[in-house]
């Protein structure tokens, strides 16, 4: 396929359109992804997550600058939530990364979380593969830490940064348990603000008391940064490099990680594909609405309705 060649040689328009087609669920995009798979696995993927407004985009922007100075190419995926009311979204992360838009070594793409059944994870994972296949040395994925999705995206990253700000350690509730378990590096940004030491201490304590600490022999460091003033970024990148070397240093751990990633990718993909196809079938045939009415009228129970729909699909072919 010509398009496959274009992606591999870094053709911007081809890459941009392919990501769009992935997002829009265009069947041809899947065919391209199949062909691209063998060209993936070379980029180092960094996940950046944290609550709204903690400075993730500013941090990513600074990381991109530093990586570019060391001659590395970078792809950025900035994911923002889709409005549940309209299906639309405002994707504003680019504002902080504007200065890289003319740099050919940087490709920035904003994505919305879109649909409910694994839309984010599947499209985002595929988009990571595309930026990887186009030859970027690093792919940085920014997600807002509010739901389950970013814990999913973490499984696609080699190193995951959890970004916090001073004061956030106080509010243990605000830090969902899950998010502490997945962080490889904790970044206290806006360290120009008061209460840094206390926050560092609180987070340290919470990590130490967590169950999965010292995950595979790695003690998650806590760093302080001032992304808006380009402070602490070099140290952060050094720490990411240390984590990368740590991952590479242990063959059994590395194969375990690869196994876990392939396993979660495939299981997500299966769930996603089946759910999508079933919904296309039952919404276009009207069966979905009928079943809902029957459930309300107590003509059928939801368990039987679900079993009927799923087994009908399993007897038919996957498109």
């Amino acid at each position: 396929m010509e398009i496959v060649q274009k992606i591999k040689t870094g053709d911007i328009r081809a890459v941009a359109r392919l990501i769009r087609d992935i997002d829009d669920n265009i069947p041809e995009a899947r065919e391209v992804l199949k062909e691209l798979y063998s060209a993936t696995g070379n980029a180092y993927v960094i996940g950046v997550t944290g609550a709204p407004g903690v400075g993730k985009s500013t941090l990513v922007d600074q990381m991109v600058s530093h990586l570019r100075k060391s001659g590395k190419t970078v792809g950025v995926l900035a994911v923002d939530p889709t409005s549940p009311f309209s299906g639309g979204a405002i994707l504003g992360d680019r504002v902080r990364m504007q200065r890289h838009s003319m740099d050919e070594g940087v490709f920035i793409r904003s994505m919305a979380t879109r649909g409910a059944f694994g839309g984010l994870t599947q499209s985002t994972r595929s988009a990571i593969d595309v930026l990887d296949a186009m030859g970027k040395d690093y792919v940085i994925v920014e997600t807002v830490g509010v739901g389950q999705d970013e814990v999913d995206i973490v499984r696609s990253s080699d190193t995951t940064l959890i970004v916090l700000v001073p004061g956030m350690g106080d509010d243990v509730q605000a830090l969902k348990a899950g998010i502490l378990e997945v962080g490889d590096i904790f970044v206290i940004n806006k360290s120009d603000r008061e209460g840094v030491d206390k926050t560092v201490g609180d987070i340290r304590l919470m990590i130490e008391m967590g169950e999965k600490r010292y995950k595979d022999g790695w003690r998650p460091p806590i760093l302080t940064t001032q992304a808006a003033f380009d402070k602490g970024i070099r140290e952060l990148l050094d720490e990411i490099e240390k984590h990368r070397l740590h991952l590479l240093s242990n063959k059994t751990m590395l194969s375990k990680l690869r196994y876990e990633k392939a396993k979660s990718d495939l299981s997500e993909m299966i769930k996603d594909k089946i759910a999508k196809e079933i919904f296309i079938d039952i919404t276009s045939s009207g069966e979905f609405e009928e079943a809902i009415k029957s459930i309300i009228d107590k003509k059928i129970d939801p368990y039987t309705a679900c079993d009927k729909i799923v087994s009908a699909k399993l007897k038919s072919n996957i498109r």
Partner: protein
Amino acid sequence: MNKERRVRVLVAKPGLDGHDRGARIIARAYRDAGFEVVYSGLHQTPEEVVQAAIQEDVDMIGLSSLAGAHMYLFPRVVELLKEKNADDIVVCGGGIFPEEDIPKLKNAGIKEVFTPGTPLTEIVNWVKENVNPGGV
């Protein structure tokens, strides 16, 4: 049209004038209409706007300008899109312009120009009617 195609719009504010209230209001209206709106902020050069539009694979660029440089900035965006073979991206403009500039802007390839009095619903409907998501 594939029903999973979503309209993607870049809202950009080239030039030097300092606030983006108008751009933010229109961005919200687009979101509420179900569009994905990439917002790229203030003070961009036409080159940056076009580069962002291409990377983001948007269907439309909505340019806003208050400071009067629109007669240069807007046509320059259209020109650069042509150079990049990306002139399937629709360009619209909004802002405060002298009446006589509007036909000139349209001649230069700006598909529609909205002045401050235009109701948001009218703008949104115009986009729905004139922009095909994914170019199909």
